[in-house]
């Protein structure tokens, strides 16, 4: 047999240790994405012209597009507050995801000596791992978002920031009364139901940590697994179809993560009461406008 399917495992492999800390291949992947991100924006904004060209054009287009998207969801005032977080999420996740399709990621590494010992094989002599050796590889680099730890950290940041900005925008009393609605008991027989709805709200809020982290991790991990499997089944040909698909998935997942964070930030920092006061203000404004029109008409 010329080659074997690489073992597909969820947990990242430890490459080396710095003191007591294990450095895994997904961590190296994350560092590489950070360096690429830094280089991209450093080169793009190094020589700034009033009329942008080349790299500066690309960077400006990305930032402007994201700013427009943020303003479209949350309005001009709040967009200024949300934009840094949402745009950072998008760009960082996009770079981490796109690392998946680079040649060498998942395929360059060291020989896994333990697996060799289990299979009773001697050390390989050639540079390329072929035949029985082809599934005894520990890759040096794996995309950062194919590790559940990174996506969980991103999801925790997203949910905690939503709560913190809610506390700042609404004040601790109104923010807590969203979840522990003791005031509802004054409404008589509906009270317990309203209190229960508040608790449900708390559960949905917390389950968002799971949904954010699992969606991103699942999509990117499955993407790299698909690439590995099809490189095994139909080498050189099948990946012509699947690599563009992975680019699309990388883009969509980054955008979905950023947009959902934005939508929940928007929901979390606005309350029902605020909506009502806005509604009333709009109504009184319209009434005064129609009065003015009536005056000018007469």
């Amino acid at each position, binding site marked *: 047999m010329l080659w074997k399917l690489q073992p597909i495992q969820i947990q990242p492999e430890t490459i080396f240790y710095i003191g007591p800390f294990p450095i895994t291949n997904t961590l190296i992947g994350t560092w590489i994405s950070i360096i690429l991100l830094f280089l991209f924006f450093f080169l793009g904004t190094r020589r700034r012209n009033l009329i942008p060209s080349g790299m500066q054009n690309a960077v400006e287009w990305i930032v402007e597009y994201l700013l427009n998207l943020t303003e479209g*969801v949350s309005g001009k005032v709040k967009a200024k507050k949300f934009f840094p977080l949402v745009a950072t999420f998008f760009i960082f996740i996009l770079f981490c995801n796109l690392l998946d399709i680079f040649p060498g990621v998942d395929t360059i590494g060291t020989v896994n000596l333990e697996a060799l010992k289990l299979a009773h094989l001697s050390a390989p002599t050639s540079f390329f791992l072929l035949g029985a050796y082809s599934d005894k590889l520990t890759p040096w680099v794996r995309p950062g978002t194919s590790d559940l730890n990174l996506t969980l950290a991103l999801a925790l940041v997203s949910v905690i920031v939503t709560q913190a900005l809610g506390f700042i925008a609404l004040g601790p009393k109104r923010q807590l009364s969203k979840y522990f609605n003791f005031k509802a008991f004054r409404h008589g027989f509906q009270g317990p139901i309203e209190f229960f709805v508040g608790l*449900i709200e708390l559960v*949905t809020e917390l*389950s968002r940590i799971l*949904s954010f982290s699992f969606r991103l991790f699942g999509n990117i991990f499955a993407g790299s697994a698909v690439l590995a499997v099809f490189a095994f089944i139909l080498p050189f040909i099948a990946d012509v179809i699947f690599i563009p698909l992975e680019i699309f998935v990388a883009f969509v997942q980054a955008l*979905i993560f950023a*947009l*959902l964070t934005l*939508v929940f930030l928007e929901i979390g920092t606005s309350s029902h009461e605020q909506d009502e006061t806005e509604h009333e203000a*709009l109504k009184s404004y319209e009434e005064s406008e129609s009065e003015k029109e009536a005056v000018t008409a007469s």
Partner: protein
Amino acid sequence: MNKKPPPSVWESLALAGQLGFTIAIPLALGAILGNYLDGITHQKTLFLLLGLLLGLIIGIYGAYRLFARLF
């Protein structure tokens, strides 16, 4: 009266992607919690069914809340 413009394609897509998780995750958590309580109290399936029911209620309410801002 709708104050906001309709959400963009990407925003709708993101919300639709969140819908499945909003329904499924409380259901799974309810089932796990119910199964755990069944083990403690030596019941057959009482708490499992109650947990599933609770998860379903939470899921449906969550889905309603998610899409309430669209319509």
